[in-house]
């Protein structure tokens, strides 16, 4: 099977959908000739024209609001938000307007839009260009949240997002745009709410999102060499979340670690760990662990920045303690 980069996979998904459905258009900063600073959208304006690939002024609230209105009136916009950190700027239009319109109108108004943005640190971009803020929007009823962990996931999830009649936020890991993975030539979609088990295991379940999937996979390799068998699960979408796959796995292994690049506190890891606690408590042979990014703004200095994100070594060590029963704290 051919291997393509995550960047190309996203590009293909958008192009294929735009060919299929003329109501789809894309707007954002530097999306046309520039193809965005990450070059993910290169070539689209040449094929679809400036009427459908629209360069906007630097007005995030403005073009987010415009997308909401366009989505309510027959279009299917894709909003390109250059850095996930800018999501704070669009919160009113995304969370007060887009997320709630269907509910507040008693089911009459629909907002079929996709907000495409990114997450991920270690790019040496400092605190305001390195955040992973998906937990903020996962908290808001009415939004769906997808976290592709590879080129394969990115293409399939993007197509599903574009076809979904609800506002969907997709976060790509900006560090992964050049990472290749096998991606079929034929069309495929990945449904929301279906997790993927990448590796089967019996001693501990590692649930990881986005690029943390690769971190978990590497940790599983380290553990395998020590005789510890880890199961690795990628939820793919956190809203809706495939609880059953996660719970089945934990009931089998009795141990779980949730790994996510959002901050450790008040985030995705806490939510998933809580659900495991509620519904698989009597199968737990160890406390459910959370590994997130350190609760600090992302520092600029590379030496410091690299300390703040989960690594395979950190995951493996936690898994070891978990399996050996050494996570006990009686105090």
């Amino acid at each position: 099977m051919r291997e393509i980069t995550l960047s190309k996979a996203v590009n293909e998904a958008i192009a294929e959908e735009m060919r299929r459905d003329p109501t789809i258009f894309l707007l954002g900063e530097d999306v046309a000739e520039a193809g965005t600073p990450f070059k993910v959208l290169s070539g689209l304006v040449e094929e679809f024209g400036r009427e459908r690939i629209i360069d906007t002024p630097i007005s995030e609230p403005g073009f987010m609001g415009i997308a909401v209105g366009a989505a309510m009136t027959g279009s299917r916009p894709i909003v390109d938000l250059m850095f996930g950190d800018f999501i704070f700027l669009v919160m009113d239009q995304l969370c007060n307007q887009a997320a709630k319109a269907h509910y507040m109108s008693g089911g009459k108004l629909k907002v079929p839009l996709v907000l495409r943005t990114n997450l991920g640190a270690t790019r040496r971009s400092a605190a305001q260009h390195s955040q992973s803020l998906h937990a903020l929007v996962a908290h808001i009823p009415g939004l769906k949240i997808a976290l592709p962990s590879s080129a394969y996931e990115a293409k399939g999830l993007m197509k599903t997002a574009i076809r979904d009649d609800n506002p969907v936020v997709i976060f790509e890991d900006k560090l992964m745009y050049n990472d290749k993975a096998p991606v079929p030539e034929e069309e495929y979609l990945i449904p929301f709410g279906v997790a993927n088990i990448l590796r089967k295991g019996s001693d501990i379940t590692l649930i990881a999102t986005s690029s943390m999937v690769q971190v978990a996979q590497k940790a599983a390799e380290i553990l395998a060499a020590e005789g510890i068998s880890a199961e690795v699960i990628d939820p793919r979408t956190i809203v809706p979340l495939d609880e059953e796959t996660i719970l089945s796995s934990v009931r089998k292994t009795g141990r779980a670690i949730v790994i996510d690049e959002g901050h450790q506190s008040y985030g995705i890891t806490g939510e998933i760990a809580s659900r495991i606690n509620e519904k698989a408590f009597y199968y737990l042979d160890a406390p459910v662990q959370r590994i997130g990014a350190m609760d600090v703004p992302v520092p600029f200095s590379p030496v410091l920045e690299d300390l703040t994100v989960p690594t395979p070594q950190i995951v493996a060590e936690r898994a070891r303690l978990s399996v050996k029963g050494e996570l006990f704290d009686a105090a």
Partner: protein
Amino acid sequence: MPREVIMPALGMAQNTGLIVAWLKQPGEQVKAGDALMEVETDKAVMEVEAQADGFLTDVRASAGDTVPVGDVVALISETSVDPRTAPASGVDSKPPSLAAAAPTTPAEPKSNPNPAAARAPTAFAAPEPKATGRRIFASPKARRLAAEQGLDLSRLVAASILQPYHASDIDTLRALSAPLAVVAPKPAHASRHLTARVRGDGFVGFCEWMRAETGASPDPASVMAGMAAAALRQGGSDKPMIVAAEAFGQKRLYIDPDRLGLGRAKSAETGQAATLILRDLRATAVTAIRMGGEAAPVLSVTRDGPDMLITLECAPGQLTPEAALALISGFAGQLSEPLRHLL
């Protein structure tokens, strides 16, 4: 058609208003916009204006009255004398009680929580360590496995195995518990064996009497379990008693069946160790029993012609001779004259 003059909602958190003064008299002509009355809220004294032209009639509240917001205080009628009673103030639809509307559990329908989790842990009695009385640290899975297999985690403590305990420690625990759990084929004379005869079938008659008296159909197994527990408790023990009642091929576990009233015993958790085993073999042709000791004392009830035979068997360590005698006589006594023992 008379227009209602209502006590208005004048502020965001206001539920009542105090009428300070009426500025128009009953029967007086008023025009829309005229000040009708002065009302005091927690903030200030405000004027309430007439909403229509007409005559002020049917004044129902006086200066100094505190009136709930929304209540009708007067009417503005077409004539100064309006003998009509006020029209009904409209259907008062109350919003549905929020408590009723809110779903009670956050669980998704398809998830399958462990049944043990759903029950309120009022009667649950995991075998507590007798030695120290201190908390044992064990994972939920280890506790569940131990309970399911009737094992006592305190044996691990006694064997100086370091806490916390995990599922992997259950194998060790099983090995430590083996001597007690195994039904050792001891020579018959080593275990205690007592029999008693109960004339007639007072028990069946008693169950029928209960049905007639209470209108409910008490489960005979639980009634009998209650009697057995009561007899055992006469030995003075206040600990929870788990009675394993076997009848018609079914085994049921009751906890403290003597305490809730006959026939209303609560089921115990599966996997708990029984304090007393009760076998109701009246429906079979079996008359005499000699099977040796088991994990707990066994009371068997068999039929011999018109009579019932009670057999008590236990290992010597399970009951002293006095306790064994008290148990079988107490139980036999209840079975022969249930009403007398009930009262």
